[in-house]
């Protein structure tokens, strides 16, 4: 394990930001801390980095007890949402900072900086100042700066949160590729489930200062530990008082075992997908079907259908 957090508590005044949080992050993994906005995830990340002191509990980094170590001795690279660029230094000097204060030889620093500039595609911008870069470029610079000191773990606090949607998507894919290249244990905070699912090997779902579930994106999606995790990780609707994924509802014209009668209230075509709003005894729900099955069923408003949960045997469904 690269990072071990055990029974960490942290409060700000009356507000309990973290309550008995325990997390283990395997070496070389790319982990997302996912949860709704509001404190907990970033606080946990900052506790790991030593930028925030836990009230109680233990933090271990690469087998070393780091609970009482100051931030500068933890060997942790940290990337901030708002870049935290050293605005009085050029891009190259920003990246060189960690090496310069370690008094490394000039030639070594230059070599390393050139390598990193290439890695983050900022070769032409080496002599610019941060104010002359776009948000995405600044964040890549911040990442190179954190990587320069070869940290044991890399922590990113909502790294793409301040960027617009397009740049965000590009950087996400780029972070994934970068991680496959450098293999440093990486933890990033996000409130965007799509981002977490797309980029991370494993996801730690947090809410109200507690860990709700830890697992791979598939595990969390297929076997959520509770309703919160289920509804946070994807679309949900309610059938007979239970949460269901809208694409796990099976619609048929004829009644089948365990089906209930439903009335179609609205049919919305969203490209390949079709959203079907239904009503069962006054209760509203919706199903997601493909265009093909929508045509087979001849879906129209006001039609009566039969609904049941599809068998949770995903593998079999995929083969057929």
């Amino acid at each position, binding site marked *: 394990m690269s990072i071990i957090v055990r029974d960490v508590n942290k409060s700000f005044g009356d507000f309990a930001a973290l309550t008995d949080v325990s997390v283990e992050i395997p070496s070389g993994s790319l982990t997302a801390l996912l949860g709704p906005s509001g404190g907990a995830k970033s606080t946990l990340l900052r506790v790991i980095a*030593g930028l925030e002191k836990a009230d109680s509990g233990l933090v271990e980094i690469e087998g070393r007890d780091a609970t009482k170590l100051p931030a500068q001795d933890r060997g942790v690279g940290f990337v901030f949402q708002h870049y935290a660029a050293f*605005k009085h230094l050029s891009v190259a000097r920003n990246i060189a*900072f960690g090496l310069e204060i370690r008094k490394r030889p000039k030639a070594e620093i230059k070599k390393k900086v050139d390598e990193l500039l290439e890695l983050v595609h900022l070769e032409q911008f080496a002599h610019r100042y941060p104010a002359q870069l776009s948000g995405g470029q600044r964040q890549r610079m911040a990442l190179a*700066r954190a990587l320069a000191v070869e940290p044991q773990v890399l922590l990113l606090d909502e790294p793409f949160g301040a960027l617009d949607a397009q740049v965000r998507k590009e950087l996400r894919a780029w972070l994934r590729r970068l991680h496959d290249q450098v293999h440093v244990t990486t933890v990033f905070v996000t409130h965007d489930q799509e981002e977490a699912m797309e980029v991370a090997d494993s996801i730690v779902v947090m809410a109200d200062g507690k860990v709700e579930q830890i697992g791979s994106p598939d595990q969390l999606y297929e076997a959520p530990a509770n309703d919160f995790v289920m509804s946070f990780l994807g679309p949900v609707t309610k059938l007979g008082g239970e949460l269901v994924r809208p694409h796990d509802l099976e619609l048929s014209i004829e009644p089948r075992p365990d089906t209930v009668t439903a009335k179609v209230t609205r049919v919305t075509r969203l490209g390949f997908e079709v959203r079907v709003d239904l009503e069962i005894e006054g209760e509203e729900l919706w199903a997601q079907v493909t265009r093909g099955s929508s045509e087979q069923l001849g879906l129209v408003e006001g039609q009566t259908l039969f609904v049941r949960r599809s068998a949770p045997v995903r593998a079999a469904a995929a083969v057929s």
Partner: protein
Amino acid sequence: MASSTTVGGAGVSLLGAPPAPPATPSRRRPLHGKGKAIGLSLVMTYLSIIVLIPLAAVVWHSQSNGFSGFVHAVTTPEAASTLKLTIYSSILVAAINMVMGTAIAWVLVRDKLPGRTFLDTLIDLPFALPTIVAGLALLTVYGPNSPLGVNLAYQRAGVVVALLFVTLPFVVRTVQPVLMELDTEMEQAAASLGAGPGTIFVRIILPNMFPAMAAGTALAFARSMSEFGSTVLISGNIPFQTQVASVHVYNQLESDNVAGAAAVSTVLLIVSLVVLVALDMLQRWAARRG
């Protein structure tokens, strides 16, 4: 004071405003045609009446006995000694207030001291007080009847203390807003890269404060060069010892030596101008870097 404060204000906003990225065109549309002409002529007329013509008149008067007359007027032993005292003590005062003003700004912004708001108000007092009152206050505390037993009257140290008093706000008030705006995440980023508190101060905080420190220091220096009211009481105006340049100018006028007064004034003007231009260049340089 009013004019110096304005210069300080402009300096701070220059420092605070991030420069527009080169590619983006300015969103502020320039005035066209008549509006632009009226605006420009209004500003030029006002500046001419208030600033340029009076200053030109001083420079003109300083040359009324020719250039050699000018050189003679500023190199008489009394004029030379008074200019030397003024320039040296201004340098000393600017240096001390650069350090102390920055320290005070730091405490006001970063340390959550009780009574901080009171301290914050206190800083403006030398701005608000008529300088002659400041002189009187200093004479009461550091004069011949000093309750502290510290008598600085009629000594150069007294001049320095008076100048320190009146120029205190400049550095505090230029550095304070910059410190408030300073992104503390920069310091955290530096810490996570392995920098200790000392390294963070020297490599991150100081370079970011420096342009504001320099701006405040330049203003304090310019103000010291011109100070009259606060020094006039405590210094005793002893020629060759404690007489500052502005008092010398006043004395020359009293004895109908207008050309001599104008000559010394011109030297003060040139030194202040050089310092302010240097400050402006420094700020442009800093603004370019963002």
